[in-house]
């Protein structure tokens, strides 16, 4: 069953078609990579899937429900309940410690639980950095905090926009390993990347070009 169904979606800025009649299905538990040159509409698509933006045309079904015409308030609720976000710039609240940053996501979702937040940090290998401020963490560590935060509420769908864009190879490896773990647990992953290595570990790669879906590559030798 499809978790996400994108039907003939366009996003138009003036006379620029950031997305041009794109259709895509993502099954629950699937791991999809999105590639494409800069400006091809990858982030635009992620924003729409992530309920932070609305398409100009077309439908977006999440769990079978059309989210393309929901109010901003309702979109916030859907995002809070179903989606975990990971960004290229590791967006953390700079005056909160690692564990507090994870707890912020719990706070908006349901109830903050420090123990659970610490466990999430442990999963990403940062148990000993829980009381550090973002400025006291390396880029890789910050991104891992973001991942811990994205998975804390057990979202059905994790959206990652260039999660390894600012990381070295060692940290990239750690992040990909975490994705593999999440995938094994049944989380649906959509990962935007410029890096073929990151795309190669996904089950399927979608290539966007000028807002259009130009290619789709199924990874034959995908393994968990």
């Amino acid at each position, binding site marked *: 069953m499809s978790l996400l169904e994108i039907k003939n979606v366009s996003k138009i800025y003036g006379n620029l078609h950031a997305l041009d009649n794109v259709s895509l299905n993502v099954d629950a538990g699937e791991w999809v990579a999105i590639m494409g040159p800069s400006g091809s509409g990858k*982030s635009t698509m992620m*924003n729409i899937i*992530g309920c*932070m*933006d609305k398409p100009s045309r077309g439908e977006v079904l999440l769990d079978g429900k059309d989210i393309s015409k929901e109010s901003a*308030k309702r979109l*916030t*609720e859907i*995002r*809070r*309940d179903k989606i975990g*976000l990971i*960004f*290229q*710039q590791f*967006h*953390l*609240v*700079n*005056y*909160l410690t690692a564990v*507090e940053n994870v*707890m*912020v*996501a*719990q*706070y*908006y*979702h349901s*109830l*903050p*639980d*420090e123990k659970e937040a610490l466990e999430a940090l442990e999963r990403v290998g940062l148990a000993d950095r829980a009381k550090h*401020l973002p400025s006291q963490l390396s880029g890789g560590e910050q991104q891992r905090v973001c991942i811990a*935060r994205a998975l804390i509420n057990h979202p059905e769908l994790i959206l990652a926009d260039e999660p390894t864009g600012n990381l070295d190879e060692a940290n990239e490896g750690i992040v990909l390993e975490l994705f593999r773990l999440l995938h094994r647990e049944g989380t649906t992953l959509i990962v935007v990347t410029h890096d073929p290595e990151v795309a190669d570990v996904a089950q399927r790669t979608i290539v966007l070009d000028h807002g259009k879906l130009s290619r789709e590559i199924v990874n034959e030798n995908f393994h968990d």
Partner: protein
Amino acid sequence: MKKQNMFFRMITASLVRRRSRMLVALLAIAVGATILSGLVTIYYDVPRQMGEQFRNYGANMIFLGAADSEGLTPDAVERGLSYIDANKLVGVAPYRYETVNINEQPVVAAGTDLAGARATSPYWIVSGEWPAADGEVLVGEDIADVFDVKAGDTLSVSFTPATAEATTAAEGEDAQEETNGIEMTFTVSGTLDTGGSEENYIFISLADMEALTGESAAYDVVELSISATQNELNAIVDSVTENVSSVTPRLVKRVTQSETTVLSKLQSLVLLVTIVVLLLTMICVATTMMAVVTERRKEVGLRKALGASNGSITMEFMGEGMLLGAVGGLLGSILGFIFAQAVSMNVFNSSITFKPLLIPITILVSILVTGLACLIPVRSATDVDPALVLKGE
């Protein structure tokens, strides 16, 4: 963990770990609250202070001559004074008023013990010097204007006995020569500014008054400044009335009158300053919060991306602002008391009473003022679009 705990943890972290930013706002609130609580303290304490000052040093009793008696002779006054504890007597000023002529114009001259007058009327402002010797005159501001004299000038004063003219009319020309007035020349030692009718008088020593009029008459009034409670004053009035038949003692409230006008002016000034200070504080807090919100647009976008509703964002910023207000208010109420105390010590030489109720009131007002100042900045925070903010930059 409870939701409120996390809320409190976030807003305190924001204030504590982002010190430099919030310090500006905190300073504005603390200064505002200091001046506010300081001025309010002074507002309520000054009347008491000033009242004491006035009553301690101004004239608060007069002796008048009783009807059908020999009048206020020095001897009668002496007997009256014997009923007042010498330690409590701050000053005694006997006055004898006569109409004299300066440049053919009638002017009221007061003969008095000038040292005594100085003690009973400490609020008189003299430009120049108080008369130090006979032959010197203290001229009321209005008289000085009319005759255009100032300290150091000379003033010619003549006296014609009232009875002389009546006698002249009856007894013919010869008599006039005999009773023609005496003329004396005084040196103006200073001019007098009191804000009252004294500005229309000239003041000379009792000895000069005798020389000018050629006779020693009874006093018209004696002003006394007594350092005593209302009850003690009443007791003095009673015993003098009873024992000295020629003296009628009266308590006076003239100084209290001017005291209240000064006070009400002072209090409206304090009120005005308070309002201005509150407005300035609000503007400062609002601009700081505006800057804070702009600076934290990314964070707001992030929080929204994590599922924060506009309500949560508003609550968080308001919470921070109001916590800031509470801390600033507490600081201000303490500093304000110190400020008021310093003013009181410097101006009145006495300490003020501490009012515990002022602390919660100051804190509450600070919270309200910061809350109000945060309204507009916080509105702009809820307008942040998470998609734009997170796009990278």
